[in-house]
């Protein structure tokens, strides 16, 4: 047992049963029900640097490599280098005082326990709480190994994880603000002759809502997606001389019943990669990217979606990492993407 509170819970529950429903001492309202040891165990997922909360078990980087490639690499990169704007996991040692610091597990995180805790509670992004303790140990070990914090054959376990020291631990200190004292000066507070004025960058702020005709990003991810698709279509039209097709907004009416059924699945899972083209995923709406894949036959495409596929352009984990989805749900979503990408 690593969590003393659980022992207390069991003891107290026993005491409560003996005492019947008598109001607990110190309780003023007696609202709520006693939390049983079993209920607590189901939700008590947190890990502390001293190892409190770690489940009994172990794992290593050799087993973690394959797990990582299926569960993590699509966003974090095969080497932990990060795809697009997704977090970089590896490298950056010695850069924290640089002009552009690279904050990674190895260069910045103070405790190894945080890695186990975070993977267990929140990863993989599209399917949190789907990994077994064994998978979490293996992947944690692999990420630590990639950061050269443990050896490849080190068996990381509940017994030794708290003993894994992170290189940057000593560089954190507790908030000591206020660190700046500005006097409330009212006159002659600065020398105008030394004041320099810096202006904002142009073209990076969504300002279309108050500056008409501005060459600016959209004010939502969806709007930006449409804006970029439109610009791309115009760019191609410039080259081919063809007219720009109307935006794909009219398509839903043409979707088959199966594709319509897949739309909700898509918006709840697949879009994370297939909207952005993350990890080489064919973008929904990109006819060229889908044509070759559809050309191989829908059966093969669906089987790649269900069982996973590793090709020259990217990695498709089995069911995109969402093993909770039924085969039918994934198949419907594939039909939605294909039909939305003519």
């Amino acid at each position, binding site marked *: 047992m690593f969590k003393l509170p659980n022992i207390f819970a069991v003891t107290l529950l026993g005491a409560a049963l003996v005492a019947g429903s008598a109001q607990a001492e110190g309780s003023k309202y007696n609202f709520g029900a*006693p939390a049983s040891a079993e209920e607590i165990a189901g939700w008590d997922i947190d890990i502390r640097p001293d190892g409190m909360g770690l489940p009994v078990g172990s794992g290593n980087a050799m087993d973690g490599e394959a797990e990582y490639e299926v569960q993590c690499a699509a966003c974090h990169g095969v080497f932990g280098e990060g795809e697009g704007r997704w977090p970089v996991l590896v490298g950056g040692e010695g850069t924290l005082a640089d002009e552009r610091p690279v904050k990674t597990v190895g260069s910045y995180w103070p405790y190894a326990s945080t890695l186990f805790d975070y993977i267990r509670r929140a990863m993989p992004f599209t399917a949190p709480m789907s990994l077994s303790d064994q998978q979490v140990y293996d992947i944690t070990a692999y990420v630590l190994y990639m950061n050269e914090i443990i050896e490849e054959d080190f068996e990381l376990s509940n017994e030794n994880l708290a003993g894994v020291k992170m290189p940057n631990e000593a560089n954190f200190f507790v908030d000591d603000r206020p660190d700046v004292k500005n006097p409330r000066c009212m006159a002659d507070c600065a020398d105008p002759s030394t004041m320099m004025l810096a202006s904002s960058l142009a073209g990076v702020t969504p300002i279309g*809502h108050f500056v008409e005709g501005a060459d600016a990003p959209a004010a939502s991810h969806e709007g930006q997606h449409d804006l970029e698709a439109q610009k791309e279509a115009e760019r191609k039209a410039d080259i081919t001389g063809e007219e720009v097709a109307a935006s794909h907004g009219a398509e839903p009416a043409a979707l088959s019943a199966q594709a319509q059924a897949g739309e909700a699945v898509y918006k709840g899972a697949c879009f994370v990669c297939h909207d952005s083209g993350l990890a080489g995923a064919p973008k929904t709406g990109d006819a060229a990217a889908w044509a070759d894949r559809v050309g191989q036959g829908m059966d093969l495409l669906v089987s790649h979606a269900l069982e996973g596929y590793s090709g020259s352009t990217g990695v498709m984990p089995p069911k995109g990492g969402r093993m909770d989805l039924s085969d039918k749900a994934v198949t419907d979503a594939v039909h939605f993407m294909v039909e939305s990408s003519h």
Partner: protein
Amino acid sequence: MTTPSTKELLQTMQDAAENLSQNDRREFLRKGVSYVAGAAAVGTAGTAAAASFSTNLPPNEPQWGKQLGRGVVANPYGVPSRFEEHVVRRTVPWLTAESISSISMSPIHDLKGIITPNGLVFERYHAGVPDVNPDEHRLMIHGLVDNPLIFTMEDLMRFPSVSEIKFIECPANGGMEWRGPQMEALQFTHGMLSCCEWTGVPLKVLLEEAGIRPEGKWILAEGADGAHMSRSIPIEKILDDTLVVYAQNGEMLRPEQGYPLRLLNPGWEGNTSIKWLRRIEVGDKPWHHREETSKYTDLLADGTARRFTFVQECNSVITNPCPENPIKKPGFIEIEGLAWTGRGKIKGVDVSFDGGVSWQPAQLKGLVLDKALTRFSFQTKWSGEPWLLQSRAYDETGYVQPTLAQLREQRGVNSIYHKNSIHTWQVQPTGEVKNVQIT
């Protein structure tokens, strides 16, 4: 086309504006501003718009006075006028990889008073908005307590309730501008900020029910969303003013704000106010989870980092004028803005027109509440002269909002979080307002 002189432009705008209905004024001004930027012809746009609306102006009876309107319950849950559809949350899409783990900003340039309407409160999710059924939502309290408890929403709403007006601010508010000015609009420089009346139960009441043990010094608060967002909070804060809230501005929490239950740590960085709150564990030490180590720690120039930087220090910004609210005409102007501090009440705000060389006291107006947005006002005249407009708030602890130079000197520019420096708007002779920094 040549750009008219400021005087001509202002005269054109003024003439056209007089022919416009109030509802069309905003659209006209937008076109006016873009004209200044050299994009559209204001005279044409103004005249065309004025013509289409002129039958609604005196001496004519407007269209809406000659017919009936909607009846009761046509909108069982009311929505703003269709003429206000531009008052919305917005984001900067390139900030994050997608919209699920992302942030949006409140349109504070369009808001009045100190309360943020529920549909406009800024959003921050780490795994999107969960669709929580309140009948199946539970709050578990366990750890170093005598009686581990599980509460239903019904249980929680039986406790005596409190209602308090408090701001919530993301510690990354303004964080895009440590290195230099970057955002050309107030919504993006300061919009990770909202203020509501929150209703719920003090967390200490719930912990007393569970019987906190003497060795309990910290709690871990955890959400029910896919991120299972978690933060460690010292017990002193809980005993002071932490609330467990289920309502905002008179109605149940919006899903975006943690429906049906969230933590509220007044004056502290927003992400400590865990949404979709499902679990409180009492412990003797902090947990050092991802959102208090990898993120939400303040990296300094020497490579060391502050952690548990909970308090949102005293801050302020001018909301009129601002890039979205240019000065429309010479003459009287009420310079208005918002001030706030995580350390208590705002004591006062000063305004500078010359980039911080000299300062004059502004007036606080309306409610001045603990850890709430506080509105300030400075009435003056503008006659087309350029301003370097700033506000500087100070709070009841004596802390005075710092300059950017002072913050950079102490912290460098890699901190991301907690940039509460004095903000500068450059008011141009055209009345346009630009985001600038003085160094």
